């Protein structure tokens, strides 16, 4: 019933610790203008603007889409603001796509950003209201015990996380937009980096970045006329579950498993490992690569670390993951999910330059957030379904 929809334009800023050359409107506009140029569109061609970002407290502006309206060419157009924790970038793409899939708009602009340098993210994440216990030390403090739980369950070798970090940071060297370019990256460099939240080392964590990402999406009758490859959206899926309840499996939440099952069913995928050519997965701490390989049903339970170990997730492996360098290399939080979705689209358009997976035709974009409780994913392809 849904109108077939495609990604026809992609724009990203350079990701950096501090983009003090740009205001917030300048930042989102840089990405949006690049997406429009890529799509060969003007501002007037856009029917609606969908904006996503993580908590407003990060930049100190309440509902910043309101003041960013004209910078994004949104004057007298519909504008929607999405916020679903860390998965927000992915959710924003899904909401934007749904506007076209529902036949409401012909062409929409989807933008996500974070300018973390304008505030203190660790502070904004750790504000504790007076009655709750102030014992969670930021996102790392929350996720490290879960990583330990994964290691205990799976029997994964302790250096799995190091290997993921090396691989993603090597991939980032191919991506000029990545925030972190560690030319001398090596196993020893990661292994010897300080242990921050045991078992998570400094170089196994994501940076804090400024940046924005934008997509132009369009309905089939328009996208089909384009001479260049577009990324056809085969399926989107979102799943959420509560942060805490008795017996909740926080390491391998049911929400990720349900999300994967529904996504593949809608995309007509029966063997994801074989049918998907590459994946861009939300990995803010290295260990989440093996965890989400299992969570996305790419491999069997407790076997995810083997994919890393055997090199399956490397650029030249049978299932490349995080070709762009991933969240470990660039992390403007609110945009991080959309960057994953955008990289999947770049791959199937054959437009990923130095980090292109040869012949990629079907790709997975993935984001998660909250206490491993919000999941959003999509499958894009160079071919129509």
């Amino acid at each position, binding site marked *: 019933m849904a109108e077939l929809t495609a990604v026809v334009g992609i724009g990203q800023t350079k990701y950096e610790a501090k983009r003090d050359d740009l205001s917030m409107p300048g930042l989102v506009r840089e990405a949006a203008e690049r997406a429009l140029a890529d799509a060969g569109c003007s501002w007037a061609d856009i029917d609606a603007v969908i904006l996503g970002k993580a908590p407003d407290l990060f930049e100190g502006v309440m509902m910043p889409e309101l003041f960013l309206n004209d910078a994004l060419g949104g004057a007298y157009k519909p504008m*929607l603001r999405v916020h679903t924790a860390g998965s927000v970038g992915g959710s924003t793409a899904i909401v934007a796509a749904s506007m076209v899939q529902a036949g409401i708009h012909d062409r929409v602009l989807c933008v996500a950003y974070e300018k973390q340098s304008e505030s203190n993210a660790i502070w904004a994440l750790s504000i504790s209201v007076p009655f709750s216990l102030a014992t969670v030390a930021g996102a790392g403090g929350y996720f490290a015990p879960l990583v330990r739980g994964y290691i205990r369950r799976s029997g994964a070798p302790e250096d799995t996380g190091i290997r993921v970090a090396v691989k993603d940071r090597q991939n980032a060297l191919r991506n000029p937009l990545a925030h972190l370019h560690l030319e001398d990256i090596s196993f020893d460099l990661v292994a010897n980096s300080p242990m921050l939240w045991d078992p998570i080392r400094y170089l196994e964590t994501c940076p804090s970045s400024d940046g924005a990402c934008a997509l132009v999406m369009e309905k089939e009758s328009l996208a089909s006329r384009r001479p260049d490859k577009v990324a056809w959206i085969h399926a989107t899926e979102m799943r959420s579950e*509560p942060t805490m309840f008795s017996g909740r499996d926080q390491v391998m939440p049911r929400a990720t498993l349900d999300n994967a099952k529904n996504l593949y069913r809608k995309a007509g995928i029966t063997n994801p490992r074989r049918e998907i050519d590459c994946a861009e997965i939300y990995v803010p701490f290295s260990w989440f690569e093996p965890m989400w390989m299992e969570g996305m049903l790419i491999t069997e339970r407790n076997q995810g670390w083997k994919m890393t170990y055997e090199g399956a997730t490397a650029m030249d492996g049978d299932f490349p993951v995080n070709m762009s360098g991933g969240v470990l290399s660039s992390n403007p939080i609110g945009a991080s999910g959309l960057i994953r979705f955008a990289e999947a689209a770049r791959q199937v358009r054959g437009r990923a330059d130095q980090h292109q997976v040869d012949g990629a035709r079907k790709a997975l974009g993935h984001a998660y957030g909250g206490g491993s409780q919000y999941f959003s994913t999509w499958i894009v392809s160079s071919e129509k379904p």
Partner: protein
Amino acid sequence: MREVAVVGFTQSPSVRREPDRNEVEILIPVLQALREQTGLAGAECDFICSGSSDYLAGQSFAFVSGLDAVGAWPPVSESHVEMDGAWALYEAWVKIQMGYADTALAYGFGKPSMGDLPITLALQLDPYSVMPLWPDTISVAGLQARHCLERGLFTADEMAAVAVRDRGNAKTNPYAQVKGDFTVEGILAEPFLVNPLRKSDCAPISDGASAILLAAGDRATQICERPAWIRGFEHICEPMDFGVRDLGRSRGTEIAAEKAGVSSDKIDVAELSAPFTHQSILVERALGLPPETRINPSGGALAGNPLMAVGLSRIGECAARIFRGEADRAVAHATSGPCLQQNLVCVLEGR
């Protein structure tokens, strides 16, 4: 387009301050009541979307706790907008339109009493040039009201008459916060709060929550005897800067109303979420409401203003009148941002 209807609506009473209950505790009975009304309100729904604000809650990811009230198990297909619940409903409606869902829950909640609302809302303004001056939201609205009065668009009497009407209507609404027999003379005798606005020109600060269930086609008629079918659903955002838009009209509402087909037929009832009397007049004019339309039978935002739920409640109040057979065609309005920057219009019909 698929036939989609509002089939259930519940709300908490608007109160100046919920002293005991946190947001989840406010929300749970609202969703329980919706389940009683419709048979479903949580994980049974194909899609769920909420609207809330971290700055009202004073902490990041405040909406996450809202999920606790839903009973999101098994895991749900769910999203959140940092906007009034009316836009959450819009997203839910889109999901039904695209065939992703047949039933969808939207809810909004806010507890602005925890902070200093007029100052908190200053954080919506341009952070480089305007916000550092900390113009509170009442002062900003006052500038707009002054602009309108000086241009002769309406008089202070007409503004006061809006408050008299809405708060008189609210007398029959058990959920309303400010109600009673006000008079134009009485209001004009009030001292200015922020010249030219008097206290009665301003919506109250309210804590509260509301929820709506949507259903498509036959599901709608199974759940609700007389569903409120959505015939038009549009929203428009204007630029924020006060210098680039006409503060004497709500252009966004005009465009949304035209696209939603407001004027194509009679309108029995209109529910507006304009938080100031002068803004109510601007919205009424932008919607082009005929004289026989009953405006804000619930009292509207001037009688109860639970931010993040108030717009959703306007759609719910219209729908409830259609459920009860009191109206055949209704128009609901929601707004966000300073001086009616962003507006949403929803047209509902009994058939």
